[in-house]
């Protein structure tokens, strides 16, 4: 299902193959989505490091690492913040998953997934669950000020075929 808001963008629909991308995961390392084929991937687009709602949202996912691991899933956060900002933020919040810097060209990956807010200059609070072939199986775009929680992600992961139990 595609989600619409305003007249700007529509999030990529379920059943679409997620577009590949390569982004900095640390100041000196880069990660490509294609490297993760064979494992489910959870993409968490969020507006910005340090903002209160994001903090709660990522802190919750951080606590749920074991639950995501049950599906062998890789969790990735994405925002327009730079790799150094992500590194400081992840260290401060003890985050144990990668934050990718959708920094240059700014917001390009969010745009490709249809979840960039042009007027604001940051991504929607959007979730995508990809299966191990890289196909989008579930997505959700939350109002920017509302933390979407984790229930939808866990349910989507559990619904993937061939889930390790």
């Amino acid at each position, binding site marked *: 299902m595609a989600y619409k808001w305003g007249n700007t963008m529509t999030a990529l629909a379920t059943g679409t193959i997620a577009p590949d991308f390569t982004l900095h995961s640390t100041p000196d390392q880069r990660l490509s989505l294609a490297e993760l084929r064979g494992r489910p991937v959870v993409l968490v687009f969020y507006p910005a490091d340090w903002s209160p709602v994001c903090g709660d949202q990522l802190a*919750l996912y*951080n*606590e749920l690492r074991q639950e995501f691991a049950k599906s062998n899933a890789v969790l990735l956060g994405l925002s327009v913040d730079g790799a150094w900002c992500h590194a400081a933020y992840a260290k401060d919040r003890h985050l144990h998953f990668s934050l990718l810097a959708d920094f240059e060209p700014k917001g390009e990956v969010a745009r490709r997934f249809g979840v960039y807010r042009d007027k604001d200059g940051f991504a929607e609070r959007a979730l995508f669950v990809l299966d191990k072939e890289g196909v989008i199986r579930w997505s959700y775009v939350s109002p920017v000020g509302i933390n979407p*929680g984790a*229930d939808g992600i866990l349910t989507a992961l559990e619904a993937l075929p061939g889930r390790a139990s």
Partner: protein
Amino acid sequence: MSLAIPVGKDDHVLGPADAPVTLVEYGDYQCPACAAAHPMVKVILKRLGAKLRFVFRNMPLSEIHPYAELAAEAAEAAAAQGKFWEMHDALYEHQDEFGPDLVATLAKRLRLDTSRFEDDLVSGRFRDHVKRDFMGGVRSGVNGTPTFFVDGMRYDGILDEPSLEAVLRQRIAHNACAAAGR
């Protein structure tokens, strides 16, 4: 979002079982926003009296609050000695003193059997209970702490006393109408 786990025998409950409205809180003892909400809940409990049933469940975010899990298990260990709410209040009221020794100090102050209390914490006797609370919260759409549910529906309104109390009172009135119409 609505409450995935109904209020049951494992819950810590204040107020009558047949109260016309139930408020469930998912909280973390080391979370500043939860400590800020604590006096608000106490005032509302006092004002609504027997009209309100209040339930507290654990949602410790351990990576950002290193003593939250210990505190949650300490409250459960106090519950095993009949003093859940005393420990619950003490943890929130002494949040600024959080450290490795706080729960033992509070246990002593509450005159708990401290060796039993320590055994329960060392053995992790209540770890599963806390984990069950946590995952029940996740499945209910808890997305941060504190999160409140009014009669099972997540409260997304402003978190202050007048707003929450107004919603609870509306719910009481609604339930009274529904009962009268039966």
